[in-house]
């Protein structure tokens, strides 16, 4: 079972939103990570710089006492509770503390050893967490005695966390805004891009309700092929419907004559044999009319939508079939087809056309039938000849006359030829009758390939 099909614009919108969300989300994530990392490393670098500030300011005496100036290069150290704190310890006791640490106790972190640094986060109380850098140094006095100290520099994390949060917030605002704008733009583009499709739909609705009979011609070139084909199909259908209607009307009309004759005979005839004879004739006529009109109605007719079919193959198949049926006549047939000729036509129509003409040739020939097919410019020319008695010249016009009704049956060639002539008509081709050098009739048919 299939889920209901999503509309084209919904598909595109859905896919684009998905891609956009993923893209924007991932870029936000990576931007945020990069910012965090750079903020962290900047902070560490800053703390190291403070270590050097303290080191340059500090004076170490011979017995290892440390004296510090009141004012340091960084004023933050001198403001109580400023968020930046410094401390020098020997590992066991505090040697010096900056003014800013007043009232704040910084626990002694690890003693990292000479020239080593150690970062740690220390929670001072519920509100204040600091990042602490412990930096080990060694002071050697003139007697060569080593004094180990650790310089602790701590900075309040609140400030930097605040910065990070600010950055994240504005990042989300910007990306969200951009995403929304992109989606709206995408939606507008889709509407604009898909509008021709909506137009086709409304055109089709108009055709359905009978307000128009063709699609308009102004479509983008991607759609034009489709709409043109639909138009072709529409006109093909229209002409077919017309043909149905005509042949139905013709059938009804032409059946009236034989039926009237039949009724007349029934009422007036005294001789049963005569009646039988005449009703046979009328029934044959009716049956031929039905065949003919049925064939006319089912003729597909010309359409560029039809796939090309091989005339050579059809002719060959019909000839093989006829050879079998007319085996006892020992017919010598010649068949010459230039290359293999293809034509855009309905296969059934071509079978009907060639079948009827070739069968006539087989039927009325004495011994010889000749078929010749060649391609000339945009047309296919077919010659079908036999060595029979030919067709009397006064009947020739009648036989090929277009749309001729079958009220008056022409003996022999009649029905088949009428059908053939109608099919040729439906393809806007031509049929001519000449005298064959073989002695009998020569039909020359010209059909457009497209």
């Amino acid at each position, binding site marked *: 079972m299939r889920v209901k099909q999503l509309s084209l614009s919904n598909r595109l919108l859905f896919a684009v939103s998905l891609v956009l969300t993923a893209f924007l989300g991932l870029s936000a994530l990576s931007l945020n990570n990069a910012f965090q990392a750079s903020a962290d490393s900047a902070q560490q670098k800053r703390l190291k710089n403070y270590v050097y500030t303290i080191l340059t300011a500090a004076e170490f005496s011979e017995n290892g006492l440390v004296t510090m100036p009141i004012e340091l290069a960084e004023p933050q150290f001198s403001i109580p509770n400023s968020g930046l704190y410094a401390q020098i310890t020997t590992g066991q006791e505090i040697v010096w503390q900056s003014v800013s640490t007043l009232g704040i106790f910084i626990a002694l972190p690890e003693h990292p050893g000479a020239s080593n640094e150690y970062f740690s986060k220390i929670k001072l109380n519920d509100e204040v967490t600091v990042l602490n850098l412990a930096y080990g140094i060694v002071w050697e006095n003139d007697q060569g005695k080593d004094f180990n100290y650790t310089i602790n520099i701590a900075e309040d994390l609140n400030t930097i966390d605040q910065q990070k949060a600010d950055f994240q917030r504005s990042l989300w605002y910007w990306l969200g805004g951009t995403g929304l704008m992109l989606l709206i733009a995408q939606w507008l583009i889709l509407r604009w891009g898909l509008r021709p499709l909506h137009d086709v739909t409304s055109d089709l609705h108009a055709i359905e309700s009978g307000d128009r009979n063709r699609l308009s011609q102004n479509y983008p070139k991607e759609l034009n092929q489709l709409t043109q084909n639909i138009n072709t199909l529409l006109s093909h259908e229209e002409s077919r419907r017309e043909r149905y209607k005509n042949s139905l009307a013709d059938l009804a009309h032409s059946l009236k004559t034989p039926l009237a004759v039949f009724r007349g005979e029934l009422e007036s005839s005294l001789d049963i044999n005569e009646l039988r004879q005449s009703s046979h004739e009328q029934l044959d006529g009716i049956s031929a009319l039905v065949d003919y009109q049925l064939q006319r109605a089912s003729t597909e007719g010309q359409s560029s939508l039809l796939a090309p079919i091989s005339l050579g193959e059809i002719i060959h*198949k019909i000839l*093989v079939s006829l050879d079998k*049926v007319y085996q006892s006549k020992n017919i010598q047939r010649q068949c010459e087809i230039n290359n293999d000729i293809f034509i855009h036509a309905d296969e059934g129509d071509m079978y*009907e056309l060639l079948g009827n003409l070739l069968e006539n040739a087989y039927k009325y020939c004495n011994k010889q039938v000749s078929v010749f097919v060649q391609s000339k410019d945009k047309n296919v020319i077919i010659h079908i000849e036999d060595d029979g008695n030919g067709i009397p010249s006064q009947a020739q016009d009648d036989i090929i006359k277009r749309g001729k009704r079958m009220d008056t049956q022409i003996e022999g060639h009649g029905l088949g030829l009428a059908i053939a002539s109608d099919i040729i008509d439906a393809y806007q081709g031509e049929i001519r009758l000449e005298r064959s050098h073989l002695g009998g009739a020569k039909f020359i048919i010209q059909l457009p390939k497209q």
Partner: protein
Amino acid sequence: MRILLVEDEILLREQVTQQLQKQNLTVDSAEDGQEGLFLGLEHPYDVAIIDLGLPKLSGIEVIQNLRQAGKDFPVLILTARGRWQDKVEGLEAGADDYLVKPFHIEELSARINALARRASGWANATLACGPVTINPTSQEVFNNGTVIDLTAYEYRLLHFLMLHAGEVLSKTELTDHIYEQDHDRDSNVIEVFIKRLRTKLDPDRTLNPIETLRGRGYRLTLPRK
């Protein structure tokens, strides 16, 4: 001559069966493709008439199956629509001739006779062997120009013998080709018929038109003309 008729329209089937029987042809009929194929594979027919639009198994498939099974009796197809594509398809499948509905029964029997003749190597519509002539259309038999009166089965037997003049035909073959499928068969009857034919065709006993080959069957010895 024994005919297989496969046609699904009951009225047409019965009408054709009756008309062909009237012309002294032995007719078995089937109402769908499967039954038709079964009969065709089971019995020796001289000609089969097969409608193209059949239920269960299409006419084309019946013909293809018969041909694949090596059955080579002539097949005449009936088509209602008369489309050339159908005709060509049927002939390609192995049929030998076609007839478009509606048709005259005379046309049908003429085609059947022509197909049977062609299959057994006869060129003309009337079969002539020595002084004996048989006209399948009118079902008249002449001996030296005079009409001979034959019963239905005598006629059927002579027709078959003449179609295959010169060939040895066993009693079973003869029974198979002159009786319908459901008919009570007694091969001794053949001997009786042969005896009667001999008397009727050769009252003076000079010609010996039908020869008995002991244990093998019979042969019409009159030369084909």
